């Protein structure tokens, strides 16, 4: 749709450059309105999206990537106020292989999929796990890094099985994988408090507003390293969910191209090197 509405613009532009007589503007407006309406009808009639994201990216020489800034070490803001982390390095790697400039857009767990749906981003590289609910609305590339979500809590609290969660309070990030996975195992009587982003979830745990937190391993690891005074340990595994790159539904050309790049980077050891650098462990076995 984006390129369809945009196409008439270059043709209309020269007319607008002439001295701006009102009637001419009116004619141009009318003409573009009619074209717009025609394009709209066309788009409404066409069941699938046009697969032109890759062409657009190569033409503009800009790749827009949605990245996290609240999930160290995958994506966080460094002391120089610039985003950094594994996801940012992967974004730059893909940009370099495509030969285009990378534009980073910070997103939260809750809004990263809408960014893709509304084409505010070409790719989502944001600790995104694959699940059937998400596959209905966006497409995924092959995995590029390992990840797992779990319940973390203080040593004084005994949580060995999902049933032990009853009567306790837990913070999760709304729309994150933890939220959905927790819903599957949560017993009645578990008080789930949902926060907008990882920082909110972790702050609530640090402030003692929730007894437990359901977060990604990296977030918990980073929190434990920086807050040794807050007793925190691994309690329950929620899900092993390696990170995939999200692509808008139906953009198969772009997805196949990114898949090629990831497969090559996995084979060459480039991704393994990034995992060692940021996660301190090798990439391990990832699904296709």
């Amino acid at each position, binding site marked *: 749709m984006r390129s369809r509405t945009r196409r008439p613009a270059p043709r209309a532009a020269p007319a607008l450059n002439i001295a701006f007589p009102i009637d001419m503007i009116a004619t141009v407006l009318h003409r573009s309105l009619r074209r717009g309406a025609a394009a*709209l009808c066309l788009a409404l009639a066409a069941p699938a999206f046009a697969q032109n994201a890759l062409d657009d990216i190569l033409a503009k020489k800009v790749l827009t990537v949605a990245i996290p800034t609240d999930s160290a070490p995958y994506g966080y803001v460094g002391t120089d106020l610039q985003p950094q982390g594994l996801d940012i390095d992967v974004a730059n790697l893909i940009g370099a292989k495509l030969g285009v400039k990378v534009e980073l857009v910070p997103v939260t767990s809750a809004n990263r*999929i809408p960014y893709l749906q509304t084409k505010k981003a070409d790719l989502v590289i944001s600790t995104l796990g694959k699940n059937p609910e998400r596959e209905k609305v966006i497409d995924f590339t092959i995995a590029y890094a390992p990840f797992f979500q779990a319940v973390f809590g203080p040593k004084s609290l005994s949580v060995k099985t999902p049933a032990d969660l009853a009567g306790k309070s837990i913070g999760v990030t*709304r729309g994150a994988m933890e939220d*959905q996975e927790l819903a599957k195992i949560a017993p009645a009587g578990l008080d789930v*408090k949902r*926060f907008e982003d990882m920082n909110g979830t972790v*702050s*609530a745990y640090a*402030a003692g*507003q929730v007894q437990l937190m359901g977060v990604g391993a990296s977030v918990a690891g980073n929190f434990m390293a920086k807050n040794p005074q807050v007793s925190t340990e691994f309690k329950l595994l929620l899900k092993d969910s390696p990170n995939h790159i999200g692509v808008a539904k139906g953009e198969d050309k772009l997805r196949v191209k990114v898949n090629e790049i990831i497969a090559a980077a996995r084979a060459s050891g480039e991704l393994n090197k990034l995992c060692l650098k940021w996660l301190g462990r090798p990439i391990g076995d990832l699904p296709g």
Partner: protein
Amino acid sequence: MIALDFAPVLAEWPLLAKGVAVTLGLTATAAIAGVALGVACAWARLHGQPWLKAIVGAYVELIRNTPFIVQLFFIYFGLPGIGVKLSNETASVIAMVVNLGAYAAEIVRAGIATTPKGQIEAAQSLALSELQVFTRVVLPPSLQRVWPALVSQIIIVMLGSAVCGQISTNELSYAVNLIHSRNFRAFEATFVGTGIYLVLAMALRRLLNWAGPRFVFGR
């Protein structure tokens, strides 16, 4: 082009209904307590001892010159640091009351300040006590004068309560965000949420315009 589909959003109507109920509950509590606090602060700023004037003045300036979300986060995430742990609902209500109190104080103070001097002197000459003069002679017409501004401020606080979802209070915007994080219908969910807020705000304005003359400053 995004195909619109409202069905998955409307199917979650129990969540939306609960969100509306919580938003209204928060607003009702905050409006009553906040206006009462505002009146007390307005009195204190006009008639209090110098130390009381200074404290209330500092409170009003502090609240009116900082963002609501920062006040909310201070209460919810900050206060546990000194051992005051409040639930998310309590923290939301307190933040809203404290916020509305500061704005209402200035609005009510403006109303009181425009009371004709002769009216107060007439009341005094009838041997009314200072408290009677304030509650029976000065306050009702003052509230009547500033009622439209006060109603607007209450509505602003109700709309501002959307921020309370950030600390996991189950109000309307929290419900909307939760719904679209589950079914990814972000546009439809926010569209429905916007519509509900619009209706709530207009209904609340009518209710307050009706209730004001009857229960607050009427006779």
